[in-house]
């Protein structure tokens, strides 16, 4: 961890400690049992918001169904106390385990879906559970009153104890979230949110991280639900599996700010008391007006701070205050990415044998065979729709070929997932740049570094080296979304480079660059090759390519038209007819 990150963590921990102290003090001073109840309910919804945020905020997989985990936790605590006399002191941790298992069970099938479909599928789980629990005859459960040993069952006469307990759960949830956010876990989740395909290509085993996230998230929601049962003392299907429960988790997180520890806390601390106060003050004066005021308040905040209060405040402070400082000197472990392999003439690193792919009736790639030698710069050219990018997608595992073999250092990688191929040493960039826009330049690159790094320290060193290599060290702390087109291209190269790949697939890296910028990037690519990396590049800028590559493969209508030295290719009549055009012939005649 860098010095900067460590200072940031210290600041966060201090803030959490201050918040906890203030909340605990406020609770201690409250004498009114109704306020004590509200002080108890707020942290419960904050934990629920954090649970939602852990999955949906960081990974971007929006869940409308967190009530499922919440409800299972609540029902477990209630049923265990009713039937087995199990105290919530044991029941609530068990509720966490049950929530976690439920998360895993739900995640395995549901992560096959994306976007709206995932959200809708998640919606189904609590709805189904609601009916299941009604059908089981659990329309209403009441936690038995313990007159003998109330404290053993969390039935304290002093409600402040409930509030302190809720606060303890909240602090635990905040620390857990902070740990996730600051570790490889969080980086992987955010990368998935920003661009799942790019994350997979950068070597992240997305399904594993997503399952870990939903398990942890389910466990947090289960604990929140278990404690909710203890506070409410009555459990009914609509109260714990209802739409409102899932919505509440989502609303507090969205209101406060998604993808941060503080968002759900800000949301819960603001909205829960606001809605209660409105209800208490206006509920019997103008029935229903509280719902209108509450709704208007939410709409107003969403309009003024679409990403939530936290981010709005942070952006405003960032505009006033100094920019985040650039990172300090390079970590000691950084080396300038020395060539990992020696240039051995004739050593074939990548073999493509007779690979074909059809999309319905369209034969995108037909029987392509080629070989790439270690240290080579191979250029792939061809008209639009020739199948160049499809070929890259076949090579890095985004799509599987209908036939043929792809051998990376002699190992057949057909059928391997993109992250596996990446780990075997193949990095790639994209035709349309796919940075993780909300992440910093540094974090973008560290995602790539985790592929081959054994430790967080090593990943840091590799990321630093890669950034230095492409000249983006100055911009390491900027959000990727702020970069220029050239910088984004360099960022993608750095991300691929950080994983120390043996072979890099560069997809139209020069697209959209000015003449001077093209020269810079070409110089970089050439240096990378000279350091021993093998490079396969798709490019349209012929003038540049001729000076860069050692060999061309020309694709046309999915098939290899010809391959050879640049000098031969540019004079090949078939290539000129299919791709370069008559003007080229006239200009180079």
């Amino acid at each position, binding site marked *: 961890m860098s010095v900067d990150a460590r200072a940031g963590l210290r600041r966060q921990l201090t803030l959490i400690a201050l918040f906890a102290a203030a909340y605990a003090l406020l609770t201690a001073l409250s004498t009114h049992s109704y306020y004590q109840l509200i002080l108890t*309910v707020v942290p419960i919804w904050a934990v629920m918001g954090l649970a939602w945020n852990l999955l949906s905020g960081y990974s971007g997989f929006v869940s409308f169904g967190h009530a499922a985990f919440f409800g299972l936790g609540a029902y477990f605590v209630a049923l265990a106390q009713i039937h087995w006399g199990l105290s919530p002191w044991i029941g609530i941790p068990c509720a966490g385990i049950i929530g976690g298992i439920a998360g895993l069970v739900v995640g395995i099938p549901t992560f096959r879906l994306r976007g709206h479909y995932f959200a809708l599928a998640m919606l189904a789980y609590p709805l189904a559970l609601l009916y299941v629990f009604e*059908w089981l005859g659990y*329309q*209403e459960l009441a936690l038995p009153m313990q007159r003998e040993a109330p404290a053993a069952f969390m039935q304290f006469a002093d409600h402040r104890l409930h509030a302190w307990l809720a606060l303890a759960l909240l602090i635990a949830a905040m620390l857990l979230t902070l740990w996730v956010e600051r570790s490889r876990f969080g980086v992987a989740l955010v990368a998935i949110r920003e661009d799942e395909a790019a994350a997979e290509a950068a070597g992240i085993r997305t399904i594993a991280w997503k399952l870990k996230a939903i398990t942890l998230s389910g466990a947090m929601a289960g604990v929140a639900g278990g404690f909710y049962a203890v506070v409410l003392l009555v459990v009914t299907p609509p109260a714990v599996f209802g739409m409102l429960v899932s919505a509440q988790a989502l609303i507090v997180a969205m209101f406060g700010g998604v993808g941060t520890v503080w968002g759900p806390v800000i949301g819960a601390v603001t909205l829960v008391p606001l809605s209660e106060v409105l209800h*208490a003050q206006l509920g019997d004066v103008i*029935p229903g007006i509280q719902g209108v005021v509450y709704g208007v308040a939410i709409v107003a905040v969403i309009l003024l701070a679409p990403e939530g209060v936290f981010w709005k405040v942070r952006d405003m402070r960032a505009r006033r205050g100094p920019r985040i400082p650039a990172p300090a000197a390079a970590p000691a472990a950084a080396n300038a990415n020395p060539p990992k392999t020696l240039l051995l003439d004739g050593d074939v690193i990548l073999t493509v044998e007779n690979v074909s792919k059809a999309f319905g009736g369209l034969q995108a790639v037909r029987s392509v065979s080629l070989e790439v030698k270690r240290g080579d710069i191979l250029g792939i050219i061809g008209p639009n729709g020739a199948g160049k990018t499809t070929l890259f997608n076949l090579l890095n595992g985004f799509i599987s070929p209908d036939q043929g073999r792809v051998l990376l250092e002699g190992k057949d990688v057909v059928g391997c997932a993109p992250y596996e191929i990446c780990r075997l040493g193949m990095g790639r960039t994209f035709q349309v740049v796919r940075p993780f826009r909300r992440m910093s330049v540094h974090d973008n690159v560290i995602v790539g570094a985790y592929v081959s790094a054994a430790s967080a320290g090593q990943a840091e060193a590799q990321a630093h080296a890669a950034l230095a290599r492409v000249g983006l060290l100055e911009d390491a702390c900027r959000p990727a979304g702020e970069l220029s087109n050239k910088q984004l291209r360099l960022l993608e190269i750095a991300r691929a480079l950080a994983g120390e790949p043996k072979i890099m697939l560069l997809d139209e890296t020069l697209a959209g660059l000015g003449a001077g910028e093209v020269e810079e990037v070409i110089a970089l690519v050439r240096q990378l090759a000279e350091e021993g990396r093998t490079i396969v590049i798709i490019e349209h800028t012929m003038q540049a390519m001729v000076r860069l590559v050692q060999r061309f493969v020309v694709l046309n209508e999915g098939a290899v038209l010809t391959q050879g030295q640049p000098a031969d290719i540019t004079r090949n009549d078939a290539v000129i007819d299919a791709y370069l055009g008559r003007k080229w012939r006239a200009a180079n005649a």
Partner: protein
Amino acid sequence: MSSSVFRTVNWMRLAIALALGLAGAARAKDIEVGLIAPMSGPYARQGQVMKMAADMAIDTINRQGGIKSIGGAKLKLSVFDAGDSVERAKNAAQRMVADAPNLVVATGAYLSSFTLAVTEVTERAALPVLTFSYSDLITSRGFKHVFQTSATGVQQAEGSLPALMEMAEKASGKRPKTIGIVMDNTAASVSFVKPMREQQLTKLGLKLVVDETFTPPLANATPLIQKVRSAKPDLLILLPTVIADAKLLLEKMNEFGLGRGKLPTIANGAAILDPDLRNNMNIDQLEGVMAVVANWTTNAQKDFVAEVKQKTKEPWPTQHFVTTYGDVLIFAAALEAAGKAERGVVANALHRMNLSGGAANFFPGNGKLRFEENGRRADASLLIVQWQKGVPITVYPAKDALAPPVWPKQ
């Protein structure tokens, strides 16, 4: 304090109270009673009805001189909005016990789940609460401050069919032999027919000739009603939960010539008797439809219906109106007996209560009002109400009935 001093102080108090009373300048402190019910959200209409009833009852009691044993103290209503969820109901209850320390007794909270949560709070605050919610769980938790005035859910499910059979036999001179059930698959309907399917049908010698369950919303009632028509049961149990489904089913029954009491049709609960139905469907089609309910207006209440219509502009008092009105009368009787506006004393008075007339006239049973040890009203029984000429009228049992049932002579 020795007893003589105590007595002297009491005498002095009485003297002061009398003096103040005679002077008319001041009166005994108001006694705060509570209503905790949904005043907002989807159940707000029921909460409003309950508030109307409580206001009317309090007005009547206060005009009659308040609580005489407490120096003619007047009742004062405090309303707490139980909202639309269990969490809100619990919060409202906590607010009620924290903000209103002088509250002596309360009634509420409409839905069973709300009442369960509310009474968890009130029990701990030793605040006596009367409720009309059905759940058996409410009075099986060993609580000492909860009083349930309705027949419980289980009592209702078990008592409905025998009551119907008895009424059918008296009305038509013949015991029904066949029965049909058309129901949706919601929890309320399923639990209502459970005891029937499990034991009562065989015990009562009834043959189930139509048995149809649908998932709301119902798209087309024709196939269901066709089956009913061809099977010709003597009695039809019709259990839709959603108004739109009820409407479809009843329209189809009328179309097939089974409406208007030609096929005796019984629904569950008071939803089918609500005045709001007049806004949602053609009221003629409800003619003859019956419901088994835990409370309604009866002939014991004399001019009550006319008074309600005049004072509230409501077309008729519903079961929650009758019950909440009755609850306030129970409050008054308990306070009168307690002689003190204190929670514990009032709770004891409720436990010891044994009334005939007055509040007892507002709850179906044997004419007496008494609570069992666990807080359930002793001998709580059911009423059968039938739509007659656009108004739901109590038709069973005969002692409470305002009109005889319309039943086809077979």
